[in-house]
């Protein structure tokens, strides 16, 4: 049983944010972000019981685009022969709330289109011989699970505000949550629906002064926020907060709260600059930089002190007066810091580097059915076939039973998140051990594997030296035993580079036959110091170069990681060229996942 809205304790900020969304008719969306099990969905569902919103429309994870936007109404077409648009999720959401659980699991392109149309307030449909548009006034409440893939910035920017729910370590609070969940939910008698309704009526009386706008844009430019969506949302949220509190004047606290709500998801946390002093706080929020930057500017422009007529709760300072926007910045700094800190912890705990890689979609029969096209020996899309034949049923004179003809047939277009296979090809010859570099190789593999684990890639490992060339770990999504495999890696003399490259190429040929939809990569870690050839008397290195030229580099992405510490890197560079591989130095990879990210992108 879902706890009641009034019983949900500790999520005050989130509750307030949702009320803001409901108060302003022009605000369209809110993101509720947080790790699993902090009450994101519970809060979302409790809104219904509380009467804050009525009859929400749910967007299930596997909804297809014809259901979201609308398609031909089959029943109508069959019985009357007329081409009419069917009911759709967006048409049903008109005047209601649309709820999305785990937004970050949805298809990016689909969400982009949908949010775009919602913001416009009109849905445009061009399909199945239908061309119509219909109004859709809805608001979106969506949750984002921080333990899964990061949400694309282009999507999050379409949401006006965002709240982050941080996990609590407060004993009393957690005990209270347990008690609430165990008890029978009482009849809800909170007045939140009333508060929202009153605030709605009061909204137009709240004045948005130029100071407020200046303050907000000041903070936004200071944080280097791209685009003005954040600015607009922050101003709107400030106004809604004042209205909710029954005031006609927007206070500084309103603006501070609003700025955090509107900018959390738009701000790019600054990377730490290694040249800065060490005594800086570990997590630096963008705000700090903004403040220091502002100071510099102020000092230079001392003569022309900005002439902002601030009359709201302004504190007088002995040295100089802070501007309104600086005061707000001071307020929000701490809040952003808490969020940044949490983000940092989540990243550490789950090894989730910002997943910038574009999700590439591959066509795959076993994937998710997203759309249809004319039949061409694929899997028949029954719904689309029925839709395409429906308008002709009357003309074909079908009585009760549908008359489906060859030209009606449609097939499914299925996509799946692409499965990437990474084959690590590790040179475990003596030269590597002698120089003590094997440790770095292992560390680099581990760092890269953490990254693949998060992205659900398939990873395999092969090793080579004179004594042995072979797969030590068959490609799989499991990384559990890799650590042991790396520890057990046997090191031997000699480097049969040519044979190893041939082995990997042959292995991949077979692998690709069995897994035609996988995108394959080889990460070769070697010092390119070939010592053994396949043919007696051939120069081992030249032979390896020749073999490298013959490998499949159209379907397989090759990367060579230089493990040699020598100054002269000609051997490695030439080898990479022959393989058509990207060439990276081990020292550059070591722990730097961001660099690694960039070159694994196709």
């Amino acid at each position, binding site marked *: 049983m879902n706890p009641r809205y009034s019983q949900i304790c500790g999520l005050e900020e989130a509750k307030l944010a949702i009320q803001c969304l409901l108060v302003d008719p022009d605000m369209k969306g809110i993101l509720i972000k947080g790790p699993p099990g*902090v009450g994101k969905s519970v809060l979302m569902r409790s809104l219904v019981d509380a009467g804050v919103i009525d009859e929400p429309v749910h967007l*299930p994870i596997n909804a297809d685009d014809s259901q979201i936007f609308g398609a031909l109404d089959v029943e109508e077409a069959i019985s009357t022969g007329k081409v009419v648009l069917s*009911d759709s999720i967006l048409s049903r959401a008109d005047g209601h709330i649309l709820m999305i659980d785990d937004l970050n699991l949805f298809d990016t392109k689909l969400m982009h289109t949908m949010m775009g149309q919602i913001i416009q307030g009109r849905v445009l449909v061009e399909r199945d011989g239908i061309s119509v548009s219909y109004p859709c006034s809805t608001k979106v409440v969506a949750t984002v699970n921080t*333990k899964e893939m990061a949400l694309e910035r282009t999507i999050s920017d379409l949401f006006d505000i965002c709240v982050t729910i941080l*996990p609590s370590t407060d004993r009393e609070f957690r005990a209270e949550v347990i008690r609430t969940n*165990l008890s029978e939910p009482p009849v809800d008698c909170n007045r939140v629906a009333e508060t929202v309704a009153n605030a709605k009526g009061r909204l137009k009386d709240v004045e948005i002064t130029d100071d407020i706008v200046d303050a907000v844009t000041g903070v936004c430019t200071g944080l280097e926020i791209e685009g003005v969506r954040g600015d607009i949302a922050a101003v709107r949220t400030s106004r809604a907060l004042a209205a909710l509190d029954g005031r006609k004047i927007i206070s500084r606290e309103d603006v501070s709260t609003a700025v955090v709500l509107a900018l959390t998801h738009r701000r790019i946390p600054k990377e730490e600059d290694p040249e800065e002093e060490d005594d800086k706080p570990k997590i630096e929020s963008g705000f700090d930089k903004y403040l220091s930057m502002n100071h510099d500017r102020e000092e230079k422009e001392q003569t022309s002190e900005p002439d902002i007529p601030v009359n709201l709760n302004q504190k007088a300072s002995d040295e100089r007066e802070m501007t309104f926007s600086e005061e707000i910045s001071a307020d929000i700094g701490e809040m952003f810091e808490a969020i940044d800190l949490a983000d940092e912890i989540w990243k550490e705990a789950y090894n989730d580097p910002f997943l910038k890689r574009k999700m590439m979609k591959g066509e795959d029969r076993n994937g998710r059915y997203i759309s249809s096209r004319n039949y061409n020996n694929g899997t028949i899309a029954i719904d689309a076939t029925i839709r395409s034949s429906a308008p002709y049923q009357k003309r074909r004179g079908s009585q*009760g039973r*549908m008359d489906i003809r060859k030209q009606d047939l449609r097939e499914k277009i299925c996509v799946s998140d692409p499965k990437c296979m990474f084959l690590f090809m590790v040179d475990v010859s003596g030269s590597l051990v002698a120089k003590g570099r094997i440790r770095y190789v292992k560390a680099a593999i581990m760092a890269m594997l953490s990254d693949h684990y998060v992205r659900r890639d398939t990873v395999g490992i092969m090793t080579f030296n004179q004594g042995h060339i072979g797969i030590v770990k068959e490609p799989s999504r*499991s990384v559990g035993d890799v650590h042991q495999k790396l520890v057990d890696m046997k090191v031997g003399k000699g480097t049969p580079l040519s044979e190893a490259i041939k082995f990997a190429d042959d292995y991949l040929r077979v692998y690709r036959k069995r897994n035609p939809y996988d995108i394959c990569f080889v990460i070769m870690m070697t010092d390119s110091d070939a010592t053994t050839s396949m043919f007696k008397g051939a120069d081992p290195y030249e032979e390896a170069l020749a073999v490298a030229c013959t490998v499949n580099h159209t379907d397989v992405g090759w990367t060579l990681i230089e493990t040699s510490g020598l100054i002269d890197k000609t051997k490695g560079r030439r080898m990479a060229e022959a393989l058509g591989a990207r060439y990276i130095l081990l020292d550059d990879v070591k722990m730097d996942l961001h660099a690694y990210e960039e070159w694994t992108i196709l």
Partner: protein
Amino acid sequence: MTEKAAAEGRGRSFPFVRIAGQDEMKLALLLNVVDPSIGGVLITGQKGTAKSTTVRALEEILPERTVSKGCQFGCDVSNPENMCEICRAKLEAGTIEPVSKSMRVIELPLNATEDRVSGTLDVEYMLTHGEKKFEGGVLAQANGNILYVDEVNLLDDHVVDLLLDSAAMGRNYVEREGVSFTHPSRFILIGTMNPEEGSLRPQLLDRFGMAIEVGGMMDRKVRAQIVKERLRFDSDPVSYLESCREETEALRQRIANARTILGSVECPDHIVDLVVDISIEYGIEGHRADLAMMRAAIAYAALNGKTKVTKQDVEDTASLVLRHRLQKNIFEGSNFDNSTLIQCIFNHLE
């Protein structure tokens, strides 16, 4: 053995009460049957450690539940908040007919396609009548029952998403292939996996209320006993089942009783505090672990016919809930260490 006896016995599961060892797995399953809101069990272990056998054997001891007659989703008549449209209409009209039905174990095969999982358009009906009709899938059958996924780690990601969605909402929302439909889908998710074949997505892992690891039986005597029992069962399932009918019935009764008294089990405040302390000491985020730990202790008390939860109940069940939530490093297995648990319980004053 006659031909007839063999035919009758075919397809029957090995009796739960005769499964040797694997006490942790059995306990976890029983607690979930007593209180489905614990959130399911993930069973990790090598092949041949009686994972599937135990789950399938549950069917014999599952309690009865009262459902709406003729409903393909098996709507629970006592819960009007979570019913399908048809049953809700019936309820309002006063024509709903309660019937008693045994809980079942529904299996989700790995190769199940999305439409069979979430349900889809009844094509035959559409073609013959020109009207839409929804045909329920696995999620419809699973409502109120146990949903069993063997090798859950190998399930396609988009099918996993569907399960997560239903598990979170308690309802299945279908919006595809021209069908717009929703029905209740509240189930006990039981998954088994062999960790060598790939790991589980973190989000799915967190959804499981409990996780246990089963190991091979290394005691020669017990192994011999298991082999003998199994051979006896295979040669004549009917009489084998008959021989332990009383025990099975007793367990079934015990579960049914536990379910009856579950709501009235008293849970003192200091026990709630203890649960929170344990979670915080182990550094667990979110409230799912807290709730699962509390519910497990309550279910355990109920299973033992007690009406008040004690420290001992928490101690006996906490590890089931905690183990899979402590895996910080993906390269290692669970690093659950019960010394913290023991310390918490020791420090705790009644």
